[in-house]
């Protein structure tokens, strides 16, 4: 019998759903083994019954539940709890669900400040009241799904990789565990490291030095070239079976989308410590909290205290 699959999306762009589609040919084999019972992005299944006859949000029973996106509103919170209740195994899909992702950069401000900026202070906006009718109440900050309900499996990445989604679902259907890599992006990066300290930072717009057409193991480490690269404090795995991290393949420094190496780690503290140890003036680093915790803001970023 096919395993029943439910999917729900919260504060997210939808890229992780595209990743599911991006699995390619293996998706055909996978689809034979699963039956999708709930997936707002794909099918018309209403939460309050097809004619709106129910008073509570309801999701059908499922074996596997996928949740993408962080929790930003009361509705998300309740849906997450409903998903937990109805799904035997719950998977956090993508960095937003795992660590808050890009929407969690909003945690640098209070919800009140965000609403004021958007509905009152923005130059192009007429000063209006905050929307309050028939819209869910915003939570005080963006939460990772794991902060609200127990999550059985996490698939980080922005977006996560097709290989990982297929691998995790297959492992789950066959009853095998699917552990995440415990290495850092640097461990899988093929570039040359000479351990020479950087003294000045380059901007993202500056050109990376490399020989076009030459393999990556002939390129100098981007951090040593002066670009801020989140590799040292980021979990590896984005490269899939090929190994080489995705951004490095495109001659770009790591953005940190696979999140911290462990649940308790704070990439900002790790990176600031590492960079200041090699002699870089920490004041040079622009917007450190958002730069290093760009994808892991849930529980790590907080509004600046009022002085």
């Amino acid at each position, binding site marked *: 019998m096919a395993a029943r699959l439910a999917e729900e999306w919260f504060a997210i762009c939808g890229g992780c759903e595209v990743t599911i589609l991006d699995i390619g040919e293996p998706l055909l084999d996978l689809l034979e083994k699963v039956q999708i019972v709930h997936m707002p992005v794909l099918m018309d299944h209403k939460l309050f019954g097809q004619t709106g006859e129910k008073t509570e949000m309801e999701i059908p029973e499922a074996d596997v539940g996928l949740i993408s996106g962080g929790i930003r509103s009361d509705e998300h919170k309740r849906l997450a709890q409903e998903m937990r209740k109805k799904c035997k195994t719950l998977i956090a899909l993508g960095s937003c669900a795992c660590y808050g992702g890009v929407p969690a950069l909003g945690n640098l401000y209070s919800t009140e400040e965000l609403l004021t900026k958007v509905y009152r202070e923005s130059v192009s906006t007429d000063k209006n009241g905050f929307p309050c009718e028939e819209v869910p109440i915003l939570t005080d900050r963006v939460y990772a799904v794991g902060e609200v309900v127990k999550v059985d499996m996490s698939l980080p990445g922005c977006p996560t990789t097709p290989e990982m989604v297929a691998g995790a679902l297959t492992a789950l259907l066959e009853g095998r565990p699917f552990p995440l890599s415990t290495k850092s992006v640097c461990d899988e990066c093929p570039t040359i490291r000479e351990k020479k300290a950087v003294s000045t930072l380059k901007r993202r717009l500056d050109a990376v030095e490399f020989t076009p057409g030459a393999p990556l193991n002939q390129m100098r480490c981007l951090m040593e070239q002066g670009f801020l690269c989140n590799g040292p404090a980021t979990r590896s795995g984005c490269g899939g079976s090929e190994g080489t991290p995705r951004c490095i393949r495109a001659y770009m420094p790591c953005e940190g989308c696979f999140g911290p190496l462990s649940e308790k780690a*704070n990439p*900002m*503290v*790790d990176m*600031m*410590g590492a*960079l*200041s*140890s090699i*002699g870089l*003036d*920490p*004041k040079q680093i622009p917007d*450190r*909290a958002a730069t290093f915790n760009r994808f892991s803001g849930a529980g790590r*970023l*907080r509004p*600046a*205290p009022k002085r």
Partner: protein
Amino acid sequence: MSETELCDVETSGESGGWEPLILTFCCYWCAYTGADLAGTSRLQYPTNIRILRVQCTGMVHPNLVIEALTKGADGVLMLGCHPGDCHYLEGNLRARSRADAISLMLEDFGLEPERFRLEWVSASEGPRFAQVVTEMVEQVKKLGPSPYRT
């Protein structure tokens, strides 16, 4: 030091009011010996500090300072050899460059940068040790309890 350990050594004043708890990293070669001298010289200084002896201030990663402050310490004091005197040549210079990063990051954690202080105390500077500790305790008392204290 784990969370529970830090709570176990929590101080309370004679009046039962709040007393700051300050974690102090002392380097083995200078500051710890300086602290020892302060003790053997019978110098008076507040009892709010908890000394952790480390081999060198250069081995104290910002992680440790941030963790102490977010798990209940009201302040962190880091004491090492004077620049140029480091037993490991440049460990204290490394600590100094990290100290800037720590002060910056404290704001991101909603803490006052004054809760962290890096000072140089040599093995012969017992009185200086007592003075630095007294100053730090007074400063933290002015700031009040850490918001992370439960």
